[in-house]
Structure formats: structure tokens, C-alpha cells
């Protein structure tokens, strides 16, 4: 009964999306306010029905109703409640339902909080949103229905993939989807602007908070996924340049560029055409990511070829939306008016450079991800493009970007003074040089690139602080006045400083982890001692333990340093009986920003166990950086000018008034 209701609610949501796709557009053509307002109510009703459908699937999973195929394949009655809930999106059908639920959520948010938008713009935006929704409802209902019943219900389920039975699954996919799908809003705004043939600074101000929100979630989602891979996969890597990871990195790079170009558009009314293009590209890359992950083309060309319905359907969605929006762009963009002028050396110029480097970096990731697939389809030759490719292409493009980051906020709009900015960054430059010298001296004879990279990171962090110090005139006026100025600074300025500093923090973590990470691999018997980076780890013993739906072998290590006991670590190896699969649960010991990491291998006949121990210096900074970036985004989002809403442009205001009467 619940399954059928859930299915039916989804069908109703599709019907509502169809209405929302057509009626508001017709209303906008006829200047009929009542028809345009249909978009608002349908968007909210759609959210209600999709939420009901999603709740139905969650209920089925929680109550372990194995007569539903999706529950049977991915759940088990003994599974802890948390994983019963998160298991809903730990599979293809459920995660697609989560995808459309979030899409409906964003549509509903625009409907509920978009009261300050001109009526026709809101109608267009929600209609475009409904086009995307329609395509994905059809996809779910035709190819991936999560509510399918099994004729003869089995007694027990097949359990969720053990790797996914982790708190990471509760947070990572929803976060990532909030980011991916959040970019649909800026896409809808861009297409709506092209349909209306009108775009101005106010448009950018409406788009920016939505883009920022999506970007914050995507940033946190990627960081979360990286940390999850780090502790769950058991070999201490945190980024693999795997196509699935690249699929989330590409929209992030494009979205970051969009965030900055929308700023130029909002403040200076320039770069309009480019911003619209970036909005389209960012969401297109999100769709591409969904295609790569969901069509199975990465797992196996074979899977794609034997069950092509899903893959071909998503490919079709991809072609329709990307092709359609780019054609619309080619047709309508020349009609958009040119914006304000600026000199090459100016804030605008710096942001253009930022966009140029970010999109180029994004393009290299794109090539590295799709080239092997394209080559295999065209010539049948199989190659793998691994980390070295990305290190040689992505990294050199990011170095000039990082060098330029501190200069951007110090340049004035329209025409900037590069020399002046350089003088104001003197302190940051000196700190960077000192950092290089210190690290070089300390690790004499070691890696040569690492000290330079640390210096670059120090420059980025100090640059962000210099910008703040400059704005509050620190040490040039009495401290109390400076503090008062600091309180008066717009939150967006603080946000910029935090986000840019986060970039530097993450870079320090990345460099330290990759350069000075030390490891011990060997087989150990009880009472054996391993020495890693000044720590002594003694294996106390091995003991078996029974978990809710697994058995595990727990090893206990006593960690000491200079003869003093620091802590106890207990890595384990789990065996999940239902699937006959085993996972390695690494043990982590955090000391400041550094971590000790132990994962277990197989036991041998003579009672020894294979052990892998890493010491990862400052590794946590890799994830503190993105968290700081997201925090900066949040500060910026709470900026007053985004909260009070954009002033209505005179023409639009007049039209809105007219329409309201």
C-alpha cells in the first residue's frame, strides 16, 4: 500500500511538473498574472508530492518491507536504523529519487522566497525548472522505479554494500546533490533571461545567493566524500582522480568561476554574456556528472551496452538540455546588451583571469576524464589516465591562479593599481619568502618543490589577512577605531578573506601529506613494535567481536612516544555474512592537525597480521580548508545586500506593478 502510494505520488508530481512547464510560459506570453502565478502553486505542490514519495520509500526501508525489490536488494532486517535510512539513497533508484526531491526542494524555495522577483522572470525560472524535473520524473518512472514489487516476497534482504554502511553515506550524497542540483537554479535563471531577452545587474543579484548556496553544499560534499574515502578505503588516499570524483570536481570549478563572474555582473553590469554561458555550463557539467555516475558507463561499457535504457535515457536528457540551452544561447545571447568598460588591470580584469584559469583547469579535468572513454568508443584501445596526467596539467594552471588570488580583492573596480596592490601585499610576500627559507632549511636535501608550494600557501593566507588589515587600516589608526571598522565591514568581505585563506590552508595540507607522509608496512605478531615518525606502536593482541550484521577481528595497538603512552588504537577487519564481503575499518589517532592511521591486512597461518601504518603530517588541513571556504561562503550569503533583496530595476518594477493589478 505504501509503495503504491509512493509511486502514485511520483506520477502526480510528474503531472504537476508538466503543467508547470507550459502554463507559466503561456501566461508570460499573454501577460496574464493568474497564469504566471500557477508556477508558484504547482512548484509547492510538486515539492509536497515528491516529499511524500520520498517519505514512502524511507518508510519501506525502515520497516524492512522485502516485498519491494529495492528494499530487498539493499536492506537487511538486522541493519542499524541509521543505515536503513541512508540505504535509501545508497542505490541507483533511491539516489535518483533523492535527486528529484532536491530539485523539487529548490523549485519550492524559489516559489516560496522569490516574492521580490519580477513576476514574468519567476514564471520563466520555475517553468525551466519544471522541464528538468519532468525529464527526471520520466527517467525514474520509466527506467528506475524504486517501488517495484516482487511477486514472491523473500524473508530476508540482501543487505547494503558494506562499504556504504557508514556515517559518510548519511551526509555525503545529500550534500553533493544539494550542490549539483542547486546549480539548476542558476541554469533556470540563465535560460529564463535568454527567453526574456533581458538581463541586468539585478538578475545577477538574484542568482548569486542561489549559486553561493549550491557552491557551499558542493564544497562540503566533495570534502566530505574525500574524507570518507580516506578513512573507509583503508589505504590512506584522499583523492584518486577517479572519474566519479572528477564528475563532482568539474561543476565545482565551473561553479566557482560562476560565483566570481556573477560578482562582476552584479557590481559592474559587465560580463553578462559570459555569466549566462557559465550558468549553463555549470549545470551541464552537473548533468554530465549524473550521467557518468548513473549510466554505468564507468563501471563497464558492457553494462552500458546490455542494459542501455538507463544510459541512453540520461544521454538523451543530456543532449536535450545541454544542446537546447546552448542553441538558445547562440540564438539569443548576441541580443544582450554590452556592459561596463574596464581596464585589463582592475578588479574585473582579475576576476576575468580567475575565470579563465578556472575554466581552463576544468577543461583539462574534462579531457582527462572523457578522453579514455572517447578513445575506447572510437578505436577500442584501452588506456587509463591517472594521477600523473592531472598533476602535470591541473597543478600548473592552479599555481598562477593562487598567485593572483591575493591581488584580486586589492585592485579597484574599473582601473586598478597593480604596483599599489603589490606594495600592500609586501608583508604577505615577505612572510612567504621566510616560510620558503624556513621549510627549505628544515628539510634540507629533501623535496625542492614542497617549500615553494608552502610559501605559495603562506602568500595566499597572508594575502587574505593583508586585505582585511588594509580595509580596517590596522596599525595606521588607533586599534579601537580599527576594531570598529572591522565590525562595520560587509560580511561578504569577511567571507572572501575566509574562503581565500581556506584555499591556502588546504594547499598546506596537501603538500605536507604528499611530501612528508611516512609509512610502515609489515606483518606483526602480538607484542611486536612498529616505529613510525617517532611513535612506537605495540600490537597488544587480536580479538574477535560480533556486530549487528557482521563479525570483526579487532587489533589493539598501544601508541607511545618517547616512552610515554599516548593512546590506544583499535583498527578492525569486518566480515559481512550476508554478502560475504569484508571491509577494513582503519583506526585514526588525531594529534593536532596530523594523524596516525592503521589499517589491517590478512592474518597468516602463524598468527601474524599484515599491518599498514601511516603518519600523515597536517593531513586534516586538507579538509579544514574546504570547511573554511564553505564558512566564508556562508558569511557572504548572510551579507545584508543579499538578504534585503535587490532593488527592482525601474522597467521591471513598472511591469510587475502592471501585472499585479
Amino acid at each position: 500500500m505504501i509503495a503504491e502510494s509512493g509511486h502514485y505520488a511520483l506520477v502526480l508530481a510528474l503531472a504537476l511538473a508538466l503543467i508547470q512547464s507550459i502554463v507559466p510560459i503561456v501566461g508570460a506570453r499573454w501577460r496574464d498574472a493568474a497564469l504566471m502565478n500557477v508556477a508558484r502553486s504547482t512548484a509547492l505542490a510538486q515539492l509536497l508530492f515528491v516529499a511524500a514519495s520520498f517519505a514512502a520509500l524511507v518508510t519501506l526501508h525502515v520497516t524492512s518491507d522485502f516485498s519491494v525489490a529495492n528494499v530487498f536488494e539493499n536492506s537487511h532486517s538486522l541493519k542499524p536504523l541509521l543505515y536503513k535510512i541512508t540505504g535509501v539513497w545508497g542505490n541507483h533508484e533511491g539516489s535518483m529519487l533523492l535527486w528529484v526531491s532536491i530539485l523539487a526542494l529548490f523549485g519550492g524555495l524559489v516559489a516560496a522566497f522569490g516574492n521580490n522577483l519580477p513576476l514574468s522572470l519567476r514564471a520563466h525560472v520555475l517553468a525551466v525548472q519544471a522541464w528538468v524535473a519532468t525529464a527526471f520524473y520520466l527517467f525514474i518512472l520509466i527506467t528506475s522505479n524504486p517501488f517495484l514489487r516482487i511477486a514472491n516476497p523473500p524473508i530476508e534482504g540482501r543487505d547494503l554494500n558494506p562499504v556504504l554502511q557508514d556515517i559518510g553515506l548519511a551526509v555525503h550524497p545529500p550534500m553533493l546533490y544539494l550542490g549539483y542540483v542547486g546549480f539548476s537554479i542558476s541554469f533556470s535563471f540563465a535560460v529564463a533571461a535568454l527567453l526574456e531577452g533581458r538581463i541586468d545587474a539585478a538578475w545577477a543579484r538574484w542568482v548569486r545567493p542561489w549559486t553561493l548556496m549550491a557552491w557551499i553544499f558542493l564544497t562540503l560534499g566533495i570534502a566530505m566524500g574525500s574524507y570518507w574515502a580516506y578513512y573507509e578505503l583503508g589505504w590512506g588516499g584522499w583523492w584518486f582522480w577517479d572519474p566519479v570524483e572528477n564528475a563532482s570536481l568539474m561543476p565545482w570549478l565551473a561553479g566557482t568561476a560562476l560565483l566570481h563572474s556573477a560578482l562582476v555582473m552584479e557590481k559592474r553590469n559587465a560580463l553578462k554574456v559570459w555569466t549566462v554561458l557559465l550558468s549553463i555550463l555549470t549545470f551541464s557539467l552537473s548533468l554530465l556528472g549524473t550521467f557518468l555516475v548513473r549510466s554505468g558507463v564507468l563501471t563497464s561499457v558492457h553494462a552500458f551496452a546490455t542494459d542501455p535504457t538507463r544510459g541512453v535515457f540520461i544521454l538523451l536528457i543530456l543532449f536535450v538540455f545541454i544542446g537546447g540551452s546552448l542553441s538558445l544561447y547562440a540564438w539569443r545571447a548576441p541580443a544582450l546588451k554590452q556592459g561596463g568598460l574596464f581596464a585589463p588591470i582592475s578588479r574585473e580584469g582579475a576576476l576575468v583571469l580567475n575565470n579563465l584559469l578556472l575554466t581552463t583547469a576544468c577543461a583539462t579535468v574534462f579531457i582527462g576524464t572523457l578522453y579514455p572513454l572517447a578513445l575506447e568508443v572510437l578505436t577500442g584501445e584501452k588506456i587509463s589516465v591517472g594521477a600523473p596526467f592531472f598533476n602535470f596539467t591541473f597543478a600548473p594552471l592552479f599555481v598562477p591562479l593562487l598567485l593572483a588570488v591575493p591581488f584580486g580583492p586589492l585592485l579597484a573596480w574599473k582601473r586598478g593599481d597593480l604596483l599599489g596592490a603589490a606594495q600592500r601585499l609586501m608583508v604577505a610576500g615577505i612572510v612567504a619568502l621566510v616560510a620558503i627559507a624556513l621549510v627549505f632549511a628544515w628539510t634540507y636535501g629533501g623535496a625542492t618543490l614542497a617549500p615553494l608550494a608552502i610559501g605559495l600557501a603562506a602568500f595566499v593566507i597572508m594575502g587574505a589577512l593583508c586585505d582585511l588589515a588594509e580595509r580596517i587600516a590596522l596599525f595606521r589608526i588607533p586599534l579601537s577605531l580599527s576594531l570598529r571598522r572591522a565590525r562595520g565591514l560587509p560580511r561578504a568581505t569577511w567571507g572572501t578573506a575566509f574562503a581565500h585563506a581556506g584555499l591556502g590552508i588546504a594547499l598546506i595540507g596537501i603538500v605536507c601529506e604528499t611530501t612528508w607522509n611516512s609509512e610502515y608496512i609489515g606483518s606483526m605478531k602480538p607484542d611486536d613494535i612498529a616505529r613510525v615518525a617517532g611513535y612506537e606502536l605495540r600490537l597488544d593482541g587480536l580479538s574477535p567481536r560480533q556486530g549487528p550484521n557482521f563479525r570483526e577481528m579487532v587489533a589493539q595497538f598501544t601508541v607511545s612516544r618517547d616512552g610515554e603512552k599516548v593512546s590506544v588504537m583499535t583498527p578492525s577487519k569486518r566480515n559481512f555474512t550476508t554478502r560475504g564481503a569484508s571491509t577494513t575499518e582503519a583506526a585514526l589517532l588525531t594529534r593536532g592537525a596530523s594523524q596516525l592511521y592503521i589499517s589491517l591486512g590478512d592474518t597468516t597461518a602463524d598468527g601474524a597480521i599484515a599491518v599498514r601504518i601511516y603518519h600523515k603530517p597536517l593531513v586534516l588541513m586538507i579538509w579544514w580548508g574546504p570547511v573554511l571556504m564553505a564558512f566564508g561562503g556562508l558569511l557572504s550569503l548572510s551579507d545584508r545586500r543579499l538578504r534585503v533583496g535587490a532593488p527592482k530595476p525601474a522597467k521591471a518594477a513598472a511591469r510587475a506593478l502592471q501585472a499585479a493589478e
Partner: protein
Amino acid sequence: MTRKQRRLTLIGCALVVLAIAAGLVLNALRDSIVFFSTPSMVAEKHLGPGKRFRLGGLVEQGSLKRGDNLAVTFTVADGAATLPVAYKGILPDLFREGQGVVAEGALDANGVFRADTVLAKHDETYMPKDVADALKKQGHWKDDYGKPSNMPSASAAPTQGARR
């Protein structure tokens, strides 16, 4: 500067950055891509020692031998040919005899494949894409290899591996 000059400056900068990126990409594609081979392809192509490639196939039943200090040897087969592999380190959880595997490394002078990375995927029904395709081509494909696998949803890394 006129609008036209400014635009030209902009386009010039963009072209320079794109040219650099294109150069980097082409250079990296020449140097850092790794080709994939199965044991029979290795025999056909007479790959020399020292040339890095990815070896894929099935771990032959009964071929896994553990030596001292985490050294392991096993044989990779694709139905037509076999190749001995030596590796030192911890094998991934899902490494099993009779299952698909992908190893990265190079041949040594004795014709033994010295692997520094061994990959297996996090699903018992999964077979590495390269292996599945190669086996299929040679007619060793069994239908139950390709049972729908549950990919970790959008998660960071479905691959599990071991690196020395």
C-alpha cells in the same frame, strides 16, 4: 584604450592560457597515460621489460602464494595465456582467486610482472571494466559476471586498491 583594444587584450590573454593548457595536456597525454593489456596481449605484443602497463585478468585458482615479509605471487590468466605476478604489500580486501584483478607495474628481465599497485573493486559481483571487455572479446565471458552491481552512489572512490 578603446573597447576594441581591451577586447583584443582579453582575447589575447585567453588564447595564451589556452595554448599553455593545450601544450600541458598534449605533453601529459604523451607521457603519463598507461595502456591496458591482458596476458595474451602481452605475449602477442612482446612488451619489453621496464615498460609500465596495466595487467588485467582473472587470478588463477590455487596460484596465490605468500612469502616472507608480505611478498605475494600469483598468476593472472585470461583463458589463452597466463602471466606470473609478484607484489609486495597488503592485497585489497576483495582480492580473491578466481576473481578479476587489475595490477599496474612492469615486466622484469625474467618475464615476471612486478606490480606496484593492485586494484580490486568494492563489490563481489564486480569485475574491472577492462577485464570484462577483454574476456568478452575472447569468448570467456560468463553471464553471471555482469550482474548489476551497486555502485556507491556518487561516492568518491569505488575502487579499492593497494599500493606499495
